[in-house]
């Protein structure tokens, strides 16, 4: 039990760090919106930040980081394909 307890405490630390990163990224996204920074470049930066946030949730919070099978790629693929489509649509719009 003690061994499990120590392992859990240790494993929670990266999740807490991820939480701080997620909050920081959220504020960066919000600041870009507040600053009325528009244009393709800023849109793609904001989208990139969102995709990284989604990746971190999938890997660390959902626990997909240690999966050996195709399930490891579920969230990554879900982020990648719509991410590409959104990028394509925004680039084509100018």
């Amino acid at each position, binding site marked *: 039990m003690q061994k499990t307890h120590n392992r859990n405490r240790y494993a929670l630390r990266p999740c807490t760090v991820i939480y701080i990163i997620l909050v920081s990224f959220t504020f960066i996204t919000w600041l870009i919106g507040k600053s009325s920074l528009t244009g393709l470049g800023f849109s793609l930066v904001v989208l990139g930040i969102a995709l990284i946030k989604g990746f971190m949730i999938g890997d660390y919070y959902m*626990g997909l980081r240690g*999966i050996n099978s195709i399930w490891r790629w579920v969230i990554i693929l879900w982020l990648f394909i719509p991410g590409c489509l959104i990028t394509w649509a925004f680039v084509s719009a100018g």
Partner: protein
Amino acid sequence: MPSSYTIERRDYPPGDLAIWIFILAELLVFAIFFATYAFTRSNHVALFNHSQLSLNTNLALINTLALITSSYFVVRAVAAIREDKTRLCIHWLIAAVMMGFIFLVVKVIEYHHHYHNGINLRTNLFFMFYFSLTFFHFMHVILGMVILSAVAIKARQGHYSSTDFTGVETGACYWHMVDIVWLILFPLIYIMK
């Protein structure tokens, strides 16, 4: 037993496999919604950019922080049950549900503001997407809160322990999915111009 936060090599994701089939189906629907929004926008850039100006990014920020925080609370709940700390697990789950409730209240305030200004589904293409996407997600938040509440009740009844916590992980995975969808929805609808 799989965990949602330890790095253990295994073949299947945490929680019940059935919830992952459900999550995949939900993610597919949202992906189609996102792509449709983006490609529709590419033909109506001026309309979408102008309509976006009437959205409140401060409220969207609060909602994003509420969901991110609730996801973290759910991670803590899984960690607690793995240590056989059932009461702590229940407390974290209740905290996560409370964060979900904050999300709902803020969203209702936002909807009320739009309704008060005469903005609805029929106003234009942007608001059709805005209301459809955010309300569809809104319903998922409610379902997630129901699932987390049910998990908390079962935990209180002693159904989970450090050797049997698949139910807690199943609820947690669904809630994280709701969070991930919002993390894309927030910049796409509110910020990207």
